[in-house]
C-alpha cells in the first residue's frame, strides 16, 4: 500500500468519522486483475478496501449526478476529475458546498490494454514506481517504462493538478504542455478531406452502440439521451453506418464546451475507438474562438450555455464578427 493511498484513507476516515460527508467516492481493490473499481464508502470499516494507484481508470465525477444535490459527497479527484466536477457544478448538477474534494495530483492512468498488448499475456500482479511498472505474468516478469503505457489522454494531459480541491494530498506536479492536444488535432486537420472522412468512418463503424462512452462520461447525464427518443427519432438504432456516424457526431457536439479531455470514454470503449479526436477538436475550437476551456472554475458558464450582448454574430446572415 503506497503512501498516497494511506493519506487518502486517513482523510476519508476523518470525513466519515466527523460526519462531514454522507459518502466518500474513491476506488476499491480489484476483483478482476488490473481493474480497481469505483467505490462508495459509507462506513469506516469498509475503508480497508480503499486503494489508489495508476490503474484507477474511471472518472469518478461521473457518479456525482446519481446523488441528490443535498447529499454531502467526499470525492477523490485528480486533475481532469476536478474539472469535470467544476463543469457539473456550473450546470447545477450538484451544490459545491456539499462537495468535499480530496485532491490528488495525477501522474496518469495506465492503459491496461497497452500493457496486455506489450506483454501478450495476462498480468497477475502489478507494482509501480515513479517511472516503471513491474508486472508478474504467468510466464515471466516484465519491467516497463510507465510513460509509454499511460492512456493516450494522460500522455497529453495539461492539468494534472486538481484546481479546486478542498485538500491536496500529494505534491503538486508541473503542468503539461498544451501543445500536445493541439498538435494532435492539427495533425488530423492537416489530412485531406477524404483522409479525414475515411478515418472517421473507420473509427465509427466498429462501434457496437453499447454507449459505454456515454455512461462513463461525467457530462453525459441526460435522463433520456437523444438516441432513445422516438418522437422524433434522431438516429437509427442499429449498427448501420448512418446511425453510428450520427451517434458519434452528435455526442461530440453535445460535449462542446463541456468535455475536459479526461479520456474516460476511450478507456470504456470495448472496440478501442479513439473518439477524443472529435471532442479535442471541438475543445480546441472553443479555446480559439471563445478562449474557453471546460471546468477551469465552477462559476464560468460555457459559451454555448450563455448569452451576452457582445456575443459574436459572424454566423448570422449579414452579421459581423
Amino acid at each position, binding site marked *: 500500500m503506497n503512501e498516497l493511498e494511506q493519506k487518502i484513507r486517513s482523510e476519508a476516515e476523518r470525513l466519515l468519522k466527523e460526519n462531514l460527508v454522507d459518502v466518500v467516492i474513491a476506488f476499491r481493490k480489484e476483483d*478482476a486483475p488490473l481493474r480497481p473499481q469505483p467505490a462508495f464508502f459509507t462506513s469506516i470499516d469498509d475503508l480497508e478496501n480503499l486503494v489508489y494507484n495508476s490503474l484507477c481508470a474511471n472518472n469518478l465525477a461521473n457518479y456525482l449526478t446519481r446523488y441528490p444535490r443535498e447529499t454531502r459527497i467526499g470525492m477523490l479527484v485528480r486533475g481532469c476529475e476536478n474539472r469535470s466536477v467544476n463543469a457539473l457544478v456550473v450546470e447545477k448538477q450538484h451544490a459545491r458546498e456539499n462537495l468535499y474534494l480530496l485532491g490528488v495530483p495525477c501522474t496518469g492512468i495506465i492503459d491496461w490494454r497497452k500493457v496486455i498488448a506489450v506483454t501478450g499475456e495476462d498480468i497477475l500482479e502489478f507494482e509501480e514506481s515513479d517511472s516503471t511498472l513491474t508486472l508478474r505474468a504467468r510466464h515471466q516478469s516484465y519491467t516497463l517504462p510507465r510513460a509509454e503505457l499511460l492512456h493516450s489522454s494522460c500522455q497529453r494531459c495539461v492539468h494534472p493538478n486538481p484546481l479546486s480541491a478542498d485538500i491536496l494530498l500529494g505534491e503538486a506536479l508541473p503542468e503539461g504542455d498544451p501543445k500536445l492536444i493541439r498538435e494532435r488535432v492539427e495533425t488530423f486537420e492537416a489530412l485531406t478531406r477524404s483522409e479525414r472522412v475515411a478515418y472517421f468512418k473507420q473509427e465509427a463503424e466498429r462501434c457496437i452502440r453499447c454507449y*459505454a462512452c456515454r455512461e*462513463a462520461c461525467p457530462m453525459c447525464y441526460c435522463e*433520456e439521451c437523444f438516441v432513445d427518443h422516438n418522437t422524433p427519432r434522431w438516429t437509427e438504432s442499429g*449498427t448501420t453506418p448512418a446511425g453510428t456516424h450520427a451517434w458519434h457526431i452528435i455526442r461530440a457536439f453535445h460535449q462542446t464546451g463541456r468535455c475536459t479531455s479526461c479520456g474516460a470514454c476511450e478507456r470504456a470503449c470495448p472496440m478501442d475507438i479513439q473518439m477524443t479526436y472529435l471532442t479535442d477538436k471541438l475543445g480546441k475550437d472553443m479555446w480559439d474562438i471563445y478562449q474557453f476551456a471546460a471546468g477551469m472554475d465552477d462559476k464560468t458558464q460555457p459559451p454555448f450555455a450563455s448569452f451576452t450582448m457582445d456575443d459574436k454574430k459572424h454566423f448570422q446572415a449579414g452579421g459581423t464578427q
Partner: protein
Amino acid sequence: MKYILPKNDLNALLTAWSAEYAVIAPQKTGAYAEFLPFTPQSELRLQEPHNTRYPVKALFFPQSEAILKYNRNVGQLENLEPEPQKRVIFGIRPCDAKAVTLLDTVFAEGDNQDPFWLARRAETLLIGLGCHEPCATCFCTSAESGPFHRDGLDALLTDLGEVYLVAALSERAELLFSGLTPADAAQQESALLLQAAAEKSLPKVFELDGLKEKLDRVFDKEIWAELAQSCLGCGICTFLCPTCFCFDLVDEAQRDTRVRNWDTCMYRVYSLEASAHNPRPTRKERTRQRLMHKYSYWWEHVGKLGCTGCGRCVRYCPVGLDIRAMIRKAGAYESEVLHAN
C-alpha cells in the same frame, strides 16, 4: 478420428476448404482479434492471450438485421431470410461454441423458430480450438463448460506446439480433415495431459450446486443494490456476452425496414413503458435481472446455466465489475449476512 495438423499447413488447409466453404477465422483488427472471412493472404491470430472481443453469436445473430422490408408501392412485404451458406467457423473457443448451442434453445427449438438463425446454422461447421492456457478472466470450468469442452463443436483442436491434434466430432468434420495424418498414441496422450492441465489451471470461482435457489431466496434483498453501485448501465457485458440474446424490433421508416437489433436489459429504456412506469427503475433491478437471468431463469427454461464462463464481461466492464465475485457474494448473502445476524 484424431489427426495431426502441422501449424505450417493450416493456411493451405483452410484455402482448400475455401473451394466449398466460406471460411471464417480469427484475424487481427487493430489491437485485437475478430472473426473475419479467411483469404489465402490472411494472417490468423490463434494465439491471442484471450478470446475475440466481439462474440461469435454475431455470425448467427447479427447485431443489426433487417427482418422485414415493406415495399410501400405494392404494399407487400419482402422476404429477407438469408439463404443457408456453407461456412466453416475455424478457431472458435469451446465457451463460444457451447453458447451457440444455448442460443439454439431460444431460436431453434419449440414454437416460432427463427428462420434467420436457422438459415445461418444450417450449413455452418464449428471447428474449435481448445484453450491450453486459459486467461485470468476465464471461468468456464465453473460454468458447466471447460477449455476443451465439446458441446456444439464439429471438431476440436489441441495445440501441441508445432502441430494441432484434431479430434473430428462429426461426419462433416471427418470429411474436412480426412486427408491428414492420423495422430499416434503418444500425441493423443500429450493432448490429454495438456487438456487436463488446462482444466486444472482454472480455479473454481463459485459453487453451482444450490446456487439458483440461493439467488431466488435473496431476490428482494439489498445485496443487489450493493453489487450494482458502480455499474454504469452501458451495454458492454450484454453485447459482448455470447449467450445474451435480448433484442429490439424497430421500424426504420426512412428505409421501409423493420430491424432487429441487439438490446440490453442494462438500459433504463429496456423495460420503460409508455405510461412512464418502469418495472426496473434503478440499476439495482437491472443488474439483478441480468444476473438472475443467467444464473437462475436459464435453469428454469432449459435446465442449463445461461453463462459459459468466457469472461468477456469481466475483462471489458469499464468499472471492473467481476461477475464471478458478484455471483459469489449474492450466493453467499443468505448464509454469510442474513443468517449470521
